[in-house]
């Protein structure tokens, strides 16, 4: 028994071992529900016993063994002994793990939770529960959903996985790129909800969600080190997260890129992000969407101040992105770079062409408001700010837009 502080050891074990325990139990018992419940019980047992008995020398192994026993207990209780498959699994429940199988298990778990036959919001919830180890109330709070509703969503997902036999498997090579891209979409969504949290009573930045998204993306990166888009998404998240503290003022207002104190950026995260972007450039493979977005962020984070930003490089990257993703949101962001190179008039013309598609999107109106302000067209700018404020959901962004509007001449 080690002398480590038991509470700290449990937190650490939960952080490091939860996904491993759930993943290895899911493989052994073929049932996500049993795996989740047994893992939760094993951690509850640790909370009870570690303070009195000391922290075991190998917490991960202790948790896996304990969870295995809990799962077997449950199967016995439910009188499944006539089930030959369960019997066979019970027999080898205490046998040692084959070497190298554990990482594959976590990858299997991630692909199952992010299966395309599940609704996007379900994939997000299931990934945070099964892989991230967040509790149902935590996930419910993160997405402003009632706890019971979130519980039902997760229960329904587990039932569908079982009834429809969604496999517990790393997809075949043909399917892998599409399936990895589905996993990355889930993680990007979690990150964005953390980075631009919505709701009047929510912190403008949800560090729990951004940190969890980065942690899970690091895990995928460790499991799929050669995937360019995984590296790209991780770099994108790191370069965004690096600016987090500079992005919200002491009074809770959004600070835009041009006004941020660049000395407050996290140099270590930026260095890591830049390393990943350089690694992808060196790979010489045509980059995907996340890699291009990461490269754009690398350009921004390389500039000493906004005047030193290489806007032509930014625009060239957006042009490359438009070819991959012709969405109006990409076109909107491209127009912001155009404004820096060709002036707000040219940019406004490009933005106005997006009205049909983006009239309900706050950033469309905020961009127009800013361009009109720079052109000295206060009245039109004010109307655009009003619309942006009405549609925005992030408190820091609303505070920023309101101040800008009220400063108009």
């Amino acid at each position, binding site marked *: 028994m080690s002398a480590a502080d038991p509470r700290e050891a449990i937190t650490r074990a939960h952080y490091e071992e939860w996904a491993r325990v759930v993943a290895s139990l899911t493989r052994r018992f073929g049932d996500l529900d049993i795996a989740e419940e047994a893992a939760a019980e094993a951690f509850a047992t640790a909370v009870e016993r570690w303070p009195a008995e000391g922290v075991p020398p190998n917490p991960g192994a202790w948790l896996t063994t304990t969870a295995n026993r809990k799962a077997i207990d449950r199967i016995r209780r439910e009188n499944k002994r006539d089930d030959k498959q369960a019997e066979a699994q019970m027999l080898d429940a205490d046998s040692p793990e084959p070497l190298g199988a554990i990482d594959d298990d976590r990858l299997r778990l991630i692909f199952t939770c992010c*299966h*395309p*036959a599940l609704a996007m919001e379900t994939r997000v919830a299931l990934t945070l529960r099964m892989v991230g180890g967040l509790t149902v109330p935590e996930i419910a709070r993160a997405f402003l959903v009632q706890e019971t509703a979130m519980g039902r969503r997760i229960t329904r997902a587990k039932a569908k996985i079982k*009834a*429809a*036999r*969604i*496999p517990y*498997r790393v*997809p075949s090579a043909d*399917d892998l790129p599409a399936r990895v891209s589905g996993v990355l979409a889930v993680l990007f969504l979690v990150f964005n909800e953390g980075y631009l949290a919505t709701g009047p009573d929510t912190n403008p930045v949800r560090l729990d969600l951004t940190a969890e998204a980065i942690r899970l993306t690091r895990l995928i990166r460790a499991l799929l080190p050669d995937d360019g888009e995984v590296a790209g998404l991780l770099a994108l998240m790191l370069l965004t997260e690096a600016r987090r503290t500079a992005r919200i003022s002491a009074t809770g207002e959004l600070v835009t890129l041009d006004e941020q104190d660049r000395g407050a950026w996290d140099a270590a995260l930026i260095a890591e992000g830049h390393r990943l972007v350089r690694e992808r450039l060196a790979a010489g493979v045509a980059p995907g969407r996340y890699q291009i977005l990461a490269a754009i962020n690398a350009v921004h984070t390389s500039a000493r101040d906004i005047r030193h930003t290489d806007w032509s490089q930014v625009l060239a990257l957006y042009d490359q992105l438009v070819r991959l993703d012709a969405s109006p949101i990409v076109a909107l962001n491209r127009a912001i770079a155009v404004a820096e190179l060709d002036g707000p008039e040219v940019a406004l013309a490009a933005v106005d062409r997006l009205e049909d598609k983006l009239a309900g999107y706050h950033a469309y109106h905020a961009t127009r408001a800013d361009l009109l302000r720079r052109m000295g067209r206060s009245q039109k700018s004010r109307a655009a700010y009003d619309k942006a404020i009405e549609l925005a959901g992030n408190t820091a962004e609303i505070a920023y837009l309101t101040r800008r509007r009220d400063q108009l001449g």
Partner: protein
Amino acid sequence: MQYLISVIDDKSNPGSTDRQPAISAFNERLIAEGYWVFAGGLADTDAATVIDNRGEQAVFSDGPFVESKEYLAGVWVWEAPDLDVALKLATEASKVCDRKVEVRPFR
């Protein structure tokens, strides 16, 4: 594991009517690869009769049990090891018969 694949057509925007040769070829492949259990195209919903004999007397009514723009135009039953295999085949099936399909596991 068996899956029911429902072919869904849309009265206001029907799929093309020249798909039979492609469907037959696809069925032959399903048989050769061991997935095929059953398949059949259905007559128009106008040909349906609903029978309710839960009460004292059987009641027959003319037409489908629910009138809707989208309707079941045919079914397959496949034997597949898991949903990924079923979804892959269903993706092809939708293309082959030029209609939406729904995959639903049997209990």
